[in-house]
């Protein structure tokens, strides 16, 4: 449903909003921020696994977006354009800072605030988290966006600037790697 709200924004609305931002309308800047900040923050948090990093990435995304807003031509949706910036910032930032998430603390808290109650075994969750972390950036980004955050392949392809088929291929590869990593838990999904 949240996704539908974003989808409902027409390109006309995007262009109008961007035009106001370029003209220096502070209210338009805030509107743009309010519209997309949740998705950007959630995605960067999923990738970073750290609130401080997620905040930094989100802030950097909007700072860069406001700097480059004049170059937005409406060829893609504003959401795709912003996600492209956000992914670039997050993946480059993670690569540069080389900070590895500490898997110990927030996991239990995550279970309580997550959208869907998960009834998986703690060992399984830990194994899956490590397996996802070990994926390469491109596989991990596609997997997190599609299977965790619910993005479509069209959105993923636009944000990562790759063909849709490549997005699907990356997802297939990522799932295959995770399946191997979780082979010990095969009875869980077979049953």
């Amino acid at each position, binding site marked *: 449903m949240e996704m539908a709200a974003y989808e409902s924004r027409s390109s006309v609305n995007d262009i109008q909003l961007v035009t106001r931002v370029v003209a220096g309308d502070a209210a338009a800047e*805030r509107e743009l*921020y*309010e519209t997309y*900040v*949740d998705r950007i*923050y*959630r995605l960067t*948090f*999923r*990738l*970073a*696994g*750290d*609130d*401080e*990093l*997620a*905040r*930094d*990435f*989100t*802030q*950097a995304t*909007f*700072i860069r977006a*406001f*700097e480059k807003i004049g170059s937005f031509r409406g060829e893609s949706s504003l959401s795709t354009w912003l996600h492209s910036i956000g992914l670039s*910032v997050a993946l*480059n*930032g993670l690569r*540069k*800072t080389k*900070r590895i*998430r500490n898997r110990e603390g*927030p*996991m239990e*808290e*995550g*279970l309580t*605030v*997550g*959208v*869907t109650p*998960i009834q*998986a075994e703690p060992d*399984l*969750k830990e194994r*899956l*988290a490590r397996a*996802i972390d070990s994926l390469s950036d491109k596989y991990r980004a596609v*997997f*997190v966006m599609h*299977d*965790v955050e619910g993005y479509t392949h069209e959105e993923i392809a636009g944000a990562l600037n790759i063909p849709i088929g490549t997005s699907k291929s990356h997802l297939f590869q990522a*799932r295959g790697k*995770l*399946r191997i990593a979780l082979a010990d838990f095969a009875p*869980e*999904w*077979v049953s």
Partner: protein
Amino acid sequence: MTEDNFEEFLKKTAQGYNVPPARTPREEMWSTIQSKRAAGPQVVYGGGSQLREPAPRRFGSKVWLAAAAAALLLVATGVGIGRWTAGPSAITSVAVNATTEKPVVVVGSDQAGGSTTHQPANESGSGSEATVSPTPKVGSRNPEGRSASSAQSRLSGNEATRVATTAIPNAADRNSAYQITTTQHLSEAEALLTSFRSRPTADRQMDAQLGAWARQLLSNTRLLLDSPVANDPQRRPLLEDLELVLVQIVQLSPGSTPQDREMIEKSLQQDHVMTRLRTAIPAGPQRGS
């Protein structure tokens, strides 16, 4: 079927992966964004690590570095080619002594293959005595590899004077070099004429030495007459008169009569050669050195 089960299982389980907080810290992040935008484009991640979009800048600096290196190489190649091609054809120029930074005129002997090096200035300030010192050539591009290791006497006989040389950076330095060379030559000529006038009347050995010295100076005089130095309206007549006197001295045989020497003396007096020579030689430390 198993594949579908796995996908569903994976999606459910993965919901617990890096679960974000329920509330997005909108206001805090907005405040930070505003302050950072006001401060500048620098973005800091992870509590201190800086992300400054370094790739374009690194690339840019490499480009400039490469361009600077290429320019330097081009200039060095040009200078090298210029020096190489200009070296063998140089007839008259001045070498710069690396230790004293004084221009040094290298006078070579065609016969002996050696050369003597004349310091252009007499630091003692005595304009009546020219110096001949065996200063080695520095950086000479003489293709025949002549060295200045042997210090020939100023009375070294039938030597054709050759002025060899090295790098002359520009016209101003070249002009200065000519001035130094001329002053040096005139000083030496004055010394010769003074020796000639004060010599014993019947000394054959001295006559022979003076004749050889005069021959060397005569060659230098003619070279200077063909050089830009002769463009000076005061220097040219002096050099021409000096040439005449030197020819007379060279032609003075060891068995010459007193009348022959008297004739030379008259030439010196009529043309006021000695006075003009001393006037042309600056007193004190050599200027332009």
